[in-house]
């Protein structure tokens, strides 16, 4: 394999790892706000790395540029979506989970 191929594989794997972290986070974290954390950040990084891998793999000018635009829009829209979810939760009056709750319940 060429160095380029190694780079592509590494990016894709790390991207998949963070995608996995996001999924695990959504399952493990206790409430809507903390889950929004996992869904917005790890997911953004995972998607961005994977798209980066794709951009390297495609190698034609046009598609690479398009992939880069995808990256940019990912960075703009993902946090905005997380913000919208969190604000909707706040508007609904959902109280954030705190470390104290767990000890009360378990």
């Amino acid at each position: 394999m060429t160095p380029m191929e190694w780079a592509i594989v590494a990016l894709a794997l790390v991207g998949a790892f963070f995608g996995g972290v996001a999924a695990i986070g959504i399952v493990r974290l206790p409430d809507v706000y903390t889950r929004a954390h996992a869904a917005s950040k790890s997911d953004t990084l995972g998607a961005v790395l994977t798209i980066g891998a794709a951009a390297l793999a495609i190698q034609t000018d046009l598609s690479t540029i398009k992939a880069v635009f995808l990256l940019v829009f990912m960075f703009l829209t993902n946090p905005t979506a997380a913000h919208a979810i969190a604000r909707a939760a706040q508007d609904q009056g959902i109280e954030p989970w705190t470390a104290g709750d767990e000890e009360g319940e378990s």
Partner: protein
Amino acid sequence: MPVADSVTVRNTVAYAVEQAESAAREGQQQVSLHLVAVASTRSVDPDAQSELGQAKDLLDRIEVWLDEDLGAERPSNLDVETGVIGADRYLFSPGNYADVILAYAEEHGIERVILDPEFNPGGTTPMLRPLEVELVRGDIEVETAPVERPARSTALARAATLPKYLTVFGASYLFYLLLSSYKPLDFFTGAITATIVTALLAPIAFSRQPSLTRIPKQLARMAIYVPYLLKEIAVANLQIAYVVLHPSLPIDPEMVDLEAAVWGDAAVTTLANSITLTPGTLTVSVSEQAFDIHSLTGSAREDLFGGGLERAVRFVFYGREAAAIPSPRERGQGEDSDTESEVGEPEVADDD
């Protein structure tokens, strides 16, 4: 006129009063203006108290506006009534609202309904259009008040100037060419597309006059900011991965307020999005400069009030001098969470 809290309710009330007043001055007959708040819940429901309270507040405000608009010389044949209707049943659809409004109109011999263009009692779903359609069933005149949206219209549509047109045209033309295959035809179609885009979007494109000196500077500083942000994102993502995968899930979430020292829509948006992207912190809501931020761990709060991101955003938008403004901690914010986050292990949050 049915009323509900909205950005245009003030102007719509003014319009309705003006219409009623001129009608009263023209003719001799009695003119009456009814301003009604439509309650969606039944008065026996648990939510009804707060809804009725809000409706009452609104009607009180409207009374004050009426005094302002009508002044001392109120025509003797004009009478104004306010009230809450529809409190005897649930209202879900625009049809329900129309039923209540039409029933009320019939009962009181009302000939004309004036709608607030932002009338939206049901929440976020737009309901003006369907409500208008439903109201046409009745035997009365329906009209949407010709009022501007005060805040938003001034914020959105501004007179477009030549530099604005040129900037929008240049940006859209470049974007088009970047994605094209550089054939002669592409240059031609790109010009046409960019012209259309410019004509449509230039009036709403910038909040300030674009300047040839400011924008390239900001772009250059943005180019410095992006790698910094990427580094922050990468480091913080590793922390989150650690927290999420750690068997005991060492989190200590807390809501914090941040009074950020940034100004302007673009800068605030950039900061809000950057805060959300840097793991451990999530912008929940922003108004002006006050950020509500949900933080996942104590160390995330440390970083937030350390002000690295805020300083970087200031650097991007206002230059080097502005970056020297003290960090939120130096301005005396986030002190409560400091004491907590210095404890290594997650502690029981005792704030509520």
